[in-house]
C-alpha cells in the first residue's frame, strides 16, 4: 500500500527582546544559573506580570510577514500545571485569542518549486526554566534564567507531507524570523524548538490517521530524521496489524528513535482561563500599519524579485534568498559589479564553496561583498580572465590585498587583449612546436578542435595566464589553419 504522511509543526521561536516577556530581567544566554531571574520570574508571592511591548511588536511583525490576520484583540491565558521549573505553577500563554491569526508560509521544495503551508495561528507565551539533573547527586537543580523568556509559538496546519517538506518549512520559518530580526534563530542555544505532529494514512484517503506528537526536536537535521523515523514506525506498526495510539513521544537523536513519553490518558488538564493579571492586548490599526512600514523585504518577495527582475533561475534565487545575510551579501556584490548572474555565480560557487570548506558563516567571510563585487566587475569587463580571477579571490581571502584591482595591479594579472602582443606570443609558440604544428595540419578538420588545446595552453603559459583565452583561440586557429 502507498502511504501518505500528514505533518504539522509547532515551532517555538525565542524572540530577541532585551528583557523578558513579563519582567525586566535580561534574556541574555549563558549567564550563571538564577542570576537573571527577578522576583517576577521566581513567581514570588504578590508579583505581577507586565507585558513587554517589544515582544508584541515582534509577534505582529511575524504575522505581517506571513500575511496573517492580526486580530484587534488578543488575550493571555493561564495554562496550569505543576513542574519544578515552572515557577508560578502555570504558564502564561494565549489559548483562545492569539496575537497572530491565520497566515501562510511559502516553502521551496527540492525541485525548486514552491508550496504554500498554512499557518493556523501564532501566539505569545513565556518560556519555563530548566531542570538540571547532572552534578546534583540524586537531586534536581532549577535554573530560572530562561523562565519568562518570550516565545512565539507558530502552529502550522497539517499541510506538510514529508520529512523533507517539514525541514523546508522549518528553514522557511527560520529565514523569516531572522530576516525580520525578531529572533537570533540560534538552534544550538534553543532559540528555535519544534514539536511535530505526525500521522499516516493510505494515499488517497481523506480522513486523518491517529497522530503522535514528537516533542523538542531542535535542529533542521533532527526534524527530518525524527519525522522520517516516526513515519516509518507508524507505517510498520499499521502494516503489522497494530494501531497508532495518540501520545507524546520524545526524539532521541543519539539512538535516532522516538520513545513514548505519555499517552492521551496521562495528558494534563491544563485548565486554561484568561489571566486576570493582564489586560487584553488591543492593537489599533495605526500601530499595525507602523510596524508594517518597518518590515524588510522577506524571503518569498526576494526570491520572486531575484527571478523576475534579476533573471536568476528559481534555484539560484531560492538559495540566495534563504538567509538575510546571504541575500544582502549577494545584493551588495551585484550592486558593485552590475551583473546579477555573474554575482550569483560567484557568491554561490566560489564564495559559498570556500565558506563551506572552512566551516564559516557568510557573516564571517574574510572577503567582503565590496571586495568580491570589485573582483566580479573585473571579470565582467574582461580586465582579467577566469583563471586570474580565481587567483585574485584566493589572495583576497588570504588578506593579501585591499581590493581586486590592487591585487591585479601588483601581480600583473591584467588580461592581455592587445592582438599584436598575443600574435607575437603565438608566433613564438608555433615556432617552438614544429612537431605539434605538423600533426595538427595533417589531422582531419573535425579532430583539430581538440588538438588546438595544446597551443592555447602554451600561449597562456607564455602570457602567465593573462592572455584573453577567446582571443588566443581565434588567432591560433587562424594562424594554424591558414598558414
Amino acid at each position, binding site marked *: 500500500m502507498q502511504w501518505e504522511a500528514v505533518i504539522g509543526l509547532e515551532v517555538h521561536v525565542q524572540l530577541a527582546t532585551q528583557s523578558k516577556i513579563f519582567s525586566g530581567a535580561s534574556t541574555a544566554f549563558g549567564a550563571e544559573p538564577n542570576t537573571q531571574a527577578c522576583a517576577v520570574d521566581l*513567581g514570588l508571592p504578590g508579583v505581577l506580570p507586565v507585558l513587554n511591548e517589544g515582544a508584541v511588536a515582534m509577534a505582529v511583525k511575524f504575522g505581517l510577514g506571513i500575511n496573517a490576520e492580526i486580530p484587534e484583540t488578543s488575550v493571555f491565558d493561564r495554562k496550569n500545571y505543576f513542574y519544578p521549573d515552572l*515557577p508560578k505553577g502555570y504558564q502564561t500563554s494565549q489559548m483562545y485569542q492569539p496575537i497572530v491569526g491565520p497566515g501562510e508560509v511559502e516553502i521551496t521544495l527540492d525541485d525548486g518549486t514552491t508550496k504554500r503551508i498554512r499557518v493556523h495561528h501564532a501566539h505569545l507565551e513565556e518560556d519555563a526554566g530548566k531542570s538540571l539533573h547532572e552534578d546534583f547527586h540524586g537531586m534536581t537543580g532549577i535554573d530560572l534564567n530562561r523562565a519568562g523568556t518570550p516565545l512565539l509559538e507558530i502552529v502550522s496546519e497539517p499541510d506538510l507531507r514529508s520529512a523533507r517538506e517539514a525541514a523546508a518549512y522549518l528553514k522557511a520559518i527560520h529565514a523569516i524570523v531572522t530576516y525580520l530580526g525578531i529572533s537570533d534563530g540560534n538552534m544550538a542555544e534553543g532559540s528555535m524548538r519544534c514539536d511535530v505532529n505526525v500521522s499516516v494514512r493510505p494515499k488517497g484517503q481523506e480522513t486523518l490517521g491517529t497522530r503522535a506528537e514528537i516533542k523538542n526536536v531542535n535542529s533542521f537535521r533532527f526534524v527530518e530524521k525524527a519525522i522520517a523515523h516516526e513515519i516509518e514506525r507508524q507505517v510498520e506498526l499499521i502494516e503489522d496489524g497494530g494501531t497508532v495510539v495518540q501520545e507524546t513521544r520524545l526524539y532521541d537523536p543519539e539512538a535516532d528513535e522516538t520513545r513514548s513519553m505519555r499517552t492521551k490518558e496521562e495528558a494534563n488538564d491544563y*485548565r486554561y482561563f484568561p489571566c486576570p493579571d493582564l489586560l487584553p492586548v488591543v492593537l489599533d490599526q495605526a500601530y499595525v500599519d507602523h510596524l508594517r512600514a518597518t518590515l524588510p523585504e522577506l524571503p518569498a518577495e526576494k526570491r520572486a524579485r531575484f527571478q523576475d527582475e534579476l533573471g536568476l533561475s528559481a534555484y539560484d534565487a531560492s538559495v540566495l534568498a534563504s538567509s538575510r545575510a546571504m541575500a544582502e551579501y549577494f545584493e551588495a556584490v551585484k550592486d558593485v559589479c552590475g551583473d546579477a548572474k555573474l554575482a550569483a555565480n560567484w557568491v554561490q560557487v566560489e564564495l559559498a564553496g570556500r565558506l563551506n570548506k572552512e566551516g564559516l558563516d557568510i557573516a564571517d567571510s574574510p572577503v567582503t561583498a565590496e571586495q568580491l563585487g570589485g573582483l566580479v566587475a573585473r571579470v565582467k569587463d574582461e580586465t582579467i580572465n577566469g583563471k586570474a580571477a580565481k587567483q585574485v579571490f584566493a589572495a583576497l581571502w588570504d588578506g593579501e590585498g585591499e581590493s581586486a584591482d590592487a591585487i591585479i595591479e601588483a601581480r600583473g594579472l591584467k588580461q592581455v587583449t592587445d592582438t599584436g602582443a598575443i600574435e607575437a606570443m603565438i608566433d613564438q609558440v608555433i615556432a617552438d612546436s614544429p612537431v605539434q604544428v605538423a600533426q595538427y595540419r595533417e589531422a582531419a578538420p573535425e579532430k583539430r578542435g581538440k588538438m588546438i588545446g595544446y597551443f592555447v595552453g602554451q600561449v597562456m603559459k607564455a602570457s602567465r595566464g593573462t592572455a584573453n583565452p577567446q582571443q588566443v583561440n581565434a588567432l591560433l586557429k587562424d594562424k594554424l589553419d591558414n598558414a
Partner: protein
Amino acid sequence: MHDKTLTELAAALAAGEFSSRELTEFLLARIDRLDGELNSFITVTADAALEAADRADQTRATGQAGPLTGLPLALKDIFCTRGVRTSCGSRMLDNFVSPYDATVVEKLAAAGSVSLGKTNMDEFAMGSSNENSFYGPVKNPWDLAAVPGGSSGGSAAAVAAGLVPAALGTDTGGSIRQPAAFCGITGLKPTYGRVSRYGMVAYASSLDQGGPMARTAEDCALLLGAIAGHDLRDSTSVARGVPDYREELETSLSGLKIGLPREYFGDGLAPEVEAAVRDAIKVYESLGAEVREVSLPHTELAIPAYYVIAPAEASSNLSRYDGVRFGHRCENPTDLVDLYKRSRAEGFGEEVKRRILIGTHTLSEGFFDAYYKKAQQVRRLIRQDFLDAFEDVDVLMGPASPTPAFDLGAKKDPVSMYLQDIYTIAINLAGIPGISVPAGFVQERPVGLQILGPHFAESRLLNVAHRFQQATDWHRRQPAFGKENA
C-alpha cells in the same frame, strides 16, 4: 492618645504635643500589653517602627513633614514587606521573608508613616471571621467572645482596640467592609484598579483590592490619597489622576440621591441591623438627601458567581506554593509528587484547600463553560445592575452584613459563612467602591452601614460617610477592652 484619629494625631505631631517616637512607643507598649488576648498582630516590627519614628521626627524637625509623617499604621500580613515575614496567615508562608516591598508599602514608607507590624488575617484572605488563620483567631475588642470579621480581622480589631489608629486591609468579597462593620470602624474598598496590587499576595486577582481601615472617613481619605495611583508594575491599576480625597469631604449632601436596594433589606437581615441602618438613612434625610428604593435584580447570583470565579483564580494563584522555591516544604520528600502533595497538604489550611479544590474543579475540562464562563456572564449582569442603578441615584446604601459579629466558633458550615458576605460580594464583582461606617450597636456589637458608589467615586463616598460622622458619634465609641489602660 490611643483613641485619637489619624487626623488628630497628625495635628498633635505638627503642634509638637508629642513626638512620633513617643507615640510609637506608647502604641507598641499597648500592643505588648493587650494583643496577647486580642491576637490582632502576627508580627510586630518594634525596632523598625522606632527607627522609622525617629526618622519621621527628624523630617519634621527640618520642616519637611508631609501629612502622614510619623503616623503609626499597621499592614495586613498580605502585603509584602522587605526583610519582614509576610505570612498571609498561612503555615505555607510562615517562613517567608519577602525580599521586596509591595507598592503600597513603599508609598506609605516614602510618605513617612511608621508601620508597627503585620496584622492577622484569614489564611490567604479566605474567610469572614478570621478563624482561618494559622496564627489563631482574632478576638473582637467589643466582645472577646465574638469574631472580628474577616479576612482583614486583625487590622479591624487593632484599630478598634486602639492599638493603632489605622491599618491597611484588602477586600476580595467584603474583607475590609465586613470586619470594619463588626469592629465599629470605617473601612473603604476602593474601585478595582485604584490601588496597586503589586506585592499584595493574590487570592482572586480580578477581585482583590487594598484599602484603608481607620476610625473615620476623613482618615480613610488621608490614607487612600497616599496609596492610590497608577503603578507600572500592576497592569490592572488604572492610569487616572489621584485627587486629594479630603477636598470634597465637607460638600453638602443636600439633594443627594440615595438608593436603597430592595434586595439588601430582605430575608436573612437581622431586624435590629435593619433598624440601625434605617435610622442612619433618616440621618441622611435630615441632611437633605432624597431616598428611594432601587433594585439590583441579580443580587442573589452574586454569591454563587463569586464562589466560582474567586476559587478558580485562587486555585491558579496558589499553585506557586509548591515547596520548591520558598514557603513550607515537607520533610524528606521521596519524589517530586510526594514533595508537592505533602508540602501543600501540610502548608494549607482547610478553607484554602476547599477553595483550591472548588476552583480546580470549575476550571476543568468539561466544567469550564458551565461554571467559569457562566459565572463571568453573571458577573457582567451584576455589574450592569449597579450601572443601571447609578443612572438614577448617586449612592446606594444598605447593611454591610446581615448580622452583627457572631460568636467565635458559631459558624461551622462553610456555606453559612459564605452567606455572611451577601451584601459585600457583588461590589467586588462589579469593581465599584464601597465603604462601611459605624451606624449603631446591637447588644454591644457594632453595626456597619455600607455606602456604594460608581467606579472611581471614592471622593463622593468619603464625603457621604464624613458628613454622617459629623452628624453621629458611633465612630467615636470605644470598646471597654483596653480602655482602663489608656
